[in-house]
């Protein structure tokens, strides 16, 4: 049997070259491939919530909150009882968390292929996003390691600030191509030397 790991294709594999060419010192773009994504649902105050909370070292409590960080396992707030855990490819996180939740009410679902992760970084990354995102991206309001579900390019995405000048954008895979085209277009003006 062929190895599934070798056969799989990331949703933006055919845009790789384009993204490399568009990247420069002001802003660069790349795809973060095959991240593990696990959808979690548990009502605060229930036994299932407590079990997940203990295992993950906490669950985000309000909009924008992220527990953990991009280099290990991060849990993003999606709604009061819904969270998204993200970490490196093939980590087996879904299996682990399924065992943690056990028979308690709640849900652990492997959503790894659900969203593509696009990373844009560089000093101009915020300016690129400001053209398309209605939320306040200023560092005064949007701190490092905060994430919000919102819209970019008329497309629902999760926008996550992972570093001072680094953002991860997670649209659903079917919209990933569109979002990349949109961002590449928004990046053009920053590829030239400032006059």
């Amino acid at each position, binding site marked *: 049997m062929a190895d599934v790991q070798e056969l799989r294709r990331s949703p933006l594999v055919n845009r790789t070259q384009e993204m490399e060419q568009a990247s420069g010192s002001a802003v660069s773009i790349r795809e973060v491939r095959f991240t593990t994504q696990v959808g979690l649902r548990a009502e605060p105050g229930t036994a299932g919530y407590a079990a997940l909370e203990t295992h993950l070292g906490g669950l985000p409590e309000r*909009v924008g909150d992220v527990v953990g960080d991009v280099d290990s396992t991060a849990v993003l707030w999606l*709604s*009061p009882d819904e969270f998204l855990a993200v970490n490196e490819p093939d980590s087996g996180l879904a299996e682990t968390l399924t065992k943690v939740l056990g028979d308690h009410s709640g849900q652990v679902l492997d959503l790894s292929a659900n969203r593509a992760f696009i990373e844009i970084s560089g000093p101009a990354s915020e300016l690129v996003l400001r053209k398309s995102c*209605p939320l306040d991206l200023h560092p005064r309001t949007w701190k490092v390691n905060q994430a919000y*579900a*919102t*819209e970019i390019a*008329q497309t*629902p995405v999760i926008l996550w600030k992972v570093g001072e000048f680094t953002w991860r954008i997670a649209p659903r895979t079917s919209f990933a191509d569109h979002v990349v085209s949109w961002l590449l277009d928004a990046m053009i003006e920053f590829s030239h030397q400032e006059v």
Partner: protein
Amino acid sequence: MMLIDCPYCGPRNETEFGYGGEAHIAYPKDPYALSDAEWAEFLFYRDNPKGDFAERWVHNGGCRKWFNAVRDTLTYQFKATYPAGSARPNVSGGTQ
């Protein structure tokens, strides 16, 4: 662009929201006891006031939760938003 204050996410653009009709319409305790006319009234008959109106809204583009809002149908002003299941708040000032 109008801002709607989601009880869970805070103010967001109206494009992230969907409309769900009149709020606070309870499902009949015993639907079988209803006559056809009463059932039709439950299903289809809604108020259409000029002024404050309690409505259901859903934040599709964010937390995907339903919540209620009191909106002035004349000015389109949102006077209050509150989680689904809680009582309608008293908002001062009628139609401006």
